[in-house]
């Protein structure tokens, strides 16, 4: 719904009358069918910031309610994947790991990847499991998928601690790349947020998305250097008469740059992949901008079709 909060209601109204008028002229919301581009209403998001905080906090609190291990699950998921990957891909298949021990090589990728895949799954389902809220009360709809993306940061932080422990255990020296971590984390969240806005808005109308999520996440994992290094993808490739750049095309997936960046920053196994990160940042920005536009365009339907 298009809202304008600052238009004056009726300029023709005599001043004396509006002094006693109980109506606040500074506040006006117009509800009508909307058309054209829908931008994010930042002002409204700020107004509802307390709700956002509580939604994030609710997801965190509810996630491990009535479980014995509680937040321990945030550790178990990536650690078990690491063990399996180390045995299957590192030991049996002998996939190279840019010189770092395969276990820590895999874990440095699994920490951001576990965050990304969980944020994607939870965020996509966030509208579907809250349909009663959608049909009973108004609030900026975007807060539901975004709160899922933020709530998963807790698990991410816990897993990061384990990763730091592993790095100390293997005696890997820190390098200046660590300074890039805030950017890498920001890029990872932006990518998750952008995709989640696309997928959650689609899932409300087409439940197929919900059923396809497992498959989508798995397919994405193999399109991202989680079990193998990005260095396996060549920089250049001759395709007939054309010279193409497979690794740059590959890095359109922003998680490629993020995961290689994590490895570079924490393991020092390769140089910081600036080119991949530049391409990834542009594509993440495009995903997020188009996602928020799509979400805003579709959100008027949520209450009717959810």
């Amino acid at each position: 719904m298009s809202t304008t909060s600052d238009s004056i209601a009726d300029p023709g109204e005599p001043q004396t009358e509006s002094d006693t008028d109980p109506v606040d002229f500074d506040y006006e919301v117009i509800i009508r069918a909307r058309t054209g581009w829908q931008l994010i209403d930042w002002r409204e998001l700020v107004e509802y910031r307390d709700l956002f905080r509580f939604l994030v906090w609710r997801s965190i609190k509810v996630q491990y309610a009535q479980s014995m291990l509680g937040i321990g699950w945030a550790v178990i998921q990536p650690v078990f994947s690491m063990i399996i990957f180390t045995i299957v891909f590192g030991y049996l298949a002998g996939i190279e790991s840019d010189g770092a021990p395969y276990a820590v090589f895999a874990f440095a990728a699994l920490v951001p990847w576990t965050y990304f895949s969980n944020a994607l799954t939870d965020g996509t389902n966030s509208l579907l499991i809250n349909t009663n809220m959608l049909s009973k009360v108004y609030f900026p709809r975007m807060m539901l998928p975004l709160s899922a993306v933020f709530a998963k940061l807790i698990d991410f932080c816990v897993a990061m601690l384990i990763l730091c422990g592993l790095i100390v255990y293997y005696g890997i020296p820190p390098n200046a790349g660590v300074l890039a971590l805030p950017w890498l984390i920001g890029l990872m969240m932006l990518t998750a947020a952008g995709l989640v806005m696309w997928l959650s808005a689609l899932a409300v109308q087409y439940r197929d998305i919900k059923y396809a999520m497992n498959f989508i996440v798995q397919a994405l994992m193999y399109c991202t250097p989680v079990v193998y290094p990005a260095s396996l993808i060549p920089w250049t490739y001759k395709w007939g008469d054309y010279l193409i750049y497979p690794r740059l095309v590959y890095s359109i997936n922003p998680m490629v740059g993020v995961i290689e960046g994590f490895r570079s920053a924490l393991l020092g196994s390769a140089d910081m992949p600036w080119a991949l990160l530049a391409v990834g940042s542009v594509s993440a920005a495009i995903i997020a901008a188009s996602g928020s536009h799509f979400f805003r365009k579709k959100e008027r339907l949520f209450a009717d079709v959810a």
Partner: protein
Amino acid sequence: MTTPIISVEDLSKAYRLGIKDKTRDTLVGSLFAMAKSPFVNWKRLASLDTHSPANRQGEIVWALKDVSFEVQAGEVIGIIGRNGAGKSTLLKILSRITEPTSGEVKLRGRVSSLLEVGTGFHPELSGRDNIYMNGTILGMTKREIDGKFDEIVEFSGVEKFLDTPVKRHSSGMQVRLAFAVAAHLEPEILIVDEVLAVGDADFQKKCLGKMQGVARSGRTVLFVSHNMAAVQNLCGKAILLEQGSVIAFDSCSEVTNQYLGSTISAASRDMASCRLTGMQPVIESVELLSADGTPGATIACGSAATIVIKYKAPQPLPAARFGIRIENLLGENLIFLQSLMEHGVHIDMPAEGTVRCNIPELPLLPGTYFVWVGCASNETAIDAVDRVLEINIVGGDFYGSGRLPSTDNAKIVLRSRWDFPDTKA
């Protein structure tokens, strides 16, 4: 004339009706249909969007059509109308839950809407957490809730359970807690759907009192209810909606009388106008027979009555059940009778036939009552007609003593036996 706090102009809202699938009768036909179904489904799901004009053809229904009205600040407005008249759609648009298809609303105040109590309650969270969760969803800030927290807890009366997950609260306690949060909202415009119908009588009274307080404090309230007594009690003016249009907007007593009058004359209306939206025309007639079998809408208090339903469906009705509900002038449901409830079994019915419901003693006090009739087959509602029949009960000698309770004390009559063991025979 001051500027209205709410102005509604030519508001319309379209919804799409379900589209029935064609059934195939050959194997090749069904296989072909199965292969084609993803495309058909995609088209159908996409067409749920009634906002794009291209989708507005075909089976759509206008829940609201060109509704216009203005509300001044401080007014308490009741919104009344039969089921499917568009009341809930109007509230949903005003509270920005759904978007109108066309038309415009201007709101010059912050809106809180209460279409349900306890939105956002999470069973795993404690009472304390849920107060904050629910409060922020309804548009309060954390600081506002902090300030009112003790008041909210006291109003709800569930102090002891504050740190227990609400899934271990009784449903009554959950409702109390939820309403306590809602009752402490302080928006400029408050929109309330029929939420007072929950909780026990004492709590309802408390809520009604709180609502009156809100109304008197100069806030603007829009209140939807079937309970005419509550509407008359709370509201200064009322809007009567019928089939998506405003029929009347006037003083509350004027409009409620018109509404009650219109529902009384519904007795002579045809089935189609009583039929709820989305129902198939299966019930053909509903008739009331008095004790001696003569048709007529007047029955003596406590005497026998028979309701005869004639129906005709395109195909037989497997596992069918019929229901009858009787409500009074104020819209309070008094009696619900159902073939399944009475006999414990569904009945396979032919495509066309008659159903008779015999009531040996109709225990209603003198007055006017309305009858709702519904039928379902295979657990799916097929037809429902509201206020299809009007019953006039006149004074009778139910107890054989020539006395009946007054309507201030009772709604129904009931057989009872009194013993006086301390008196000598």
